[in-house]
């Protein structure tokens, strides 16, 4: 329970930090914000890698493999496409 409350604290503080930071982003950049934050949600890759730890059950390995592939597509796809989009927002003369 104690542990849970401290995780919950971290969660809620991060939510407030997130709102504060993102509130300042102009509508112009909302799509890059979405794809960029979307890439960050691929952080599940950490969890996916961890659950493969010392497991020899084939089903866990298969599901873990799929989870890592999915999360990696999320991460790489998200960051790369954000980069592509931002390249278009360069100041034109």
């Amino acid at each position, binding site marked *: 329970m104690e542990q849970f409350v401290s995780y919950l604290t971290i969660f809620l503080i991060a939510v407030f930090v997130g709102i504060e930071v993102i509130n300042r982003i102009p509508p112009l950049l909302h799509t890059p914000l979405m794809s960029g934050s979307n890439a960050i949600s691929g952080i599940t890759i950490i969890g996916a890698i961890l659950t493969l730890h*010392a497991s020899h059950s084939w089903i866990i390995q298969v599901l873990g493999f799929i989870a890592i592939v999915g999360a990696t*597509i999320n991460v790489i796809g998200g960051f790369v496409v954000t980069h592509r989009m931002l390249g278009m927002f360069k100041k034109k003369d």
Partner: protein
Amino acid sequence: MEKAYINLLYLVSSILFIIGLKLLSHPKTAVRGNFTGAFGMFLAVVGVFLEYGTIERSDIILIGSAILVGTAIGAYIALKVEMTGMPQLVALLNGLGGLASFLVGGNSLMEILETGKNTELLNNLQFTISTAATGIIGAVTLTGSLIAFGKLQGLVSEKAVRYFGDQIVKVLFLIGAIYLGYLNVTQPTKIEWYWYVVLVSSILGVLLVMPIGGADMPVVIALLNSYSGLAASATGFVLGNNVLIISGSLVGASGILLTQIMCKAMNRSLPNVLFGGWGAAASSAPSGDIYAGKTKATSAEEVAMLLDMAQRVVIVPGYGMAVAQAQHAVRELYNQLTDKNIEVEFAIHPVAGRMPGHMNVLLAEADIPYDKMKEMDEINPTFNTVDVVIINGANDVVNPLAKTDPGSPIAGMPILDVDKAKTIIVIKRSLSPGFAGVPNPLFIQDNCLMYFQDGKKATQEIVTALKET
């Protein structure tokens, strides 16, 4: 390595995520912001390998090849996607994040059952409840996003798919998912319950997004973005990992905030988007009659003449422009007009397009300077000084009914005040109503001319006509 150091590394990557998002607030620093976030992700992955300690070779091969496959697919689709296909891609990526999350939840549970290690977790409510939550949120995110993808790609009907009693069915599935989650919490040794949670939640995701029509897609995409973050955060609670909790909640917050902005831009509440509204109205609303013989059609030559005399021109892009892939033609028009010393600006409604900021990306792709893209609040007070406003494939966002008819489905929605401009040109293929399903009295206004043509073709014809004047 000692756990404290690894946690410190995770803390650094969490901070990099926050700084990265902060830098995204200006086009000048945004590229750096994106790199900062990516570097944070890299550090987190380094951290997880350190946490692993000694890894067996077979595991390295398995993990390494999964990362390689994911990287190849991710990079390929991100580099190949057309800018007009951006909403689909974001929907798809959201869904994959959700998929990964519920698989992690299931794996964590199965691992305990299989190895017999850490069995005390099964009596830990934090672990079991957050596992069930991962299953529900992750699965809803996956299938909801796939349906959103299908709708945007035209594979699934873009219309609001409704049937008798659909609200009740949704609620029943939600209750079912929660009840199965409860069984998963009380009998964690029965892994079946977890997969039933995932199955029922998957159906729930489909049921939730199917009834939502195309006009509401910006809200849905933003909401699913939020869900994918919450799913990641829930896996953080399962694994007791701070970096997952923090980054997941950042994404969750960002998605919710965008959802709220989109709802406000349409003057609707979130429950209204999720449980009814425009979609239902679209099928029954009468349209057409109000136009009878009162609209004036125009031609490229006439538009060119009007533009030639104008000093200030505003272009309003809409989804029709995106569908017609007209952004490059619009850029040509922009070039020509600015060459003639005519001031050209773009008025962008927050919900124009299929995701928040969709129009900005398309115009940026066509090299329109971003300081020419004006937000609704900024440009609205200036419309009375506009000589010609060109509405390219937009409809509902310029419909004055939003202000005048309290009974209309779009009542109260803030709109672009184009009716104040001297001359209004509407490029539209027909008089068919927009997604809100209501006719637009703007079209019969005295100073409004209709140019019935595809958004791209019309713009090209105007460009040609301008060259000849």
